[in-house]
């Protein structure tokens, strides 16, 4: 039953990503050219509601429906890993024109080439796991 809920959330998310064109290489390129408000509007409006909602959850101490605690733990402090990791991610985001969510959406939409990008993302994740102890964090 729970797995059906996760699946349904994924379907909903996939449709949003595709229909908003956030999964389009063109929209990502346009964003980094500051050619349109579209992507900034998507992220900005999600964030505006997100900040309000998270504050509400914290102040009213809202708990998950199935018990346990809200997954809102603070991130570990630091700069290096976030900045360097972020830059590498951004380079890939602009090059492939897709971040992890949209990659799966595009696979479903039938773009065979995106499977190469997904394979790369798995390889990249694996490489990070191998090199983690040698990297500055």
């Amino acid at each position, binding site marked *: 039953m729970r797995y059906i809920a996760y699946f349904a959330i994924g379907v909903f998310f996939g449709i949003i990503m595709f229909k908003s064109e956030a999964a389009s290489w063109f929209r990502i390129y346009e964003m980094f050219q500051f050619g349109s408000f579209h992507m900034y509007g998507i992220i900005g409006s999600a964030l505006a509601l997100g900040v309000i909602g998270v504050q509400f959850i914290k102040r009213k101490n809202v708990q998950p429906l199935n018990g346990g605690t809200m*997954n809102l733990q603070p991130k570990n402090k630091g700069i290096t890993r976030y900045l360097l990791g972020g830059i590498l991610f951004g380079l890939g985001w602009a090059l492939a024109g897709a971040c992890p969510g949209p990659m799966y959406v595009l696979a479903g939409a039938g773009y065979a080439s995106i499977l190469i990008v997904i394979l790369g993302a798995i390889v990249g994740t694996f490489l990070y796991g191998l090199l*983690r102890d040698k990297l500055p964090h």
Partner: protein
Amino acid sequence: MHLITEPWPWYVAGPLIAIVMFTLLLIGKKFGMSSNLRTVCAAAGGGKAASFFDFNWREDRWNLMVVFGAVVGGYIASHFMGDTTVFIHPDVAAQLSQDYGIHSAGEAYLPTEIFSTERLSNPLNVLLLLVGGILVGFGARYAGGCTSGHAISGLSNLQIPSLIAVIGFFIGGLTMVHFIFPLIF
């Protein structure tokens, strides 16, 4: 019908993404679309090669269900919910065409010059896709999250590390588009 078949404007998509995040929080999970890549590495036996993948990945199977859903969502949206052509700003489309020979803006969802199946026979193009993916996967785990995990979830929770990561995303993205694209296209 119009509302479904036309591209969705930002003020529809953004709030819906926030709803996805809150739904996941309310069932005890969190919104982040790159952790599943670590789950995949762990499920494939990566724990033998690196301790980073040595964890009980079965507890993270839920994020694979979200991924499976996203694939199906992409199928539904692309096949049954109207035309998929993406129209970007005409100046940006013209610049893409003039500078990089990418003429498919306003004709397709993804640039056919990079993503068409025929282009898979071009080794350089395949390398470009592969490197893009590796950077995304490596960078997301190094930074501890991607667009959803940091730019939406993390910033919604007012996390400074997420702000640093998002600044990094833009440094990387702007560098790629403005300084590296002229070298590779």
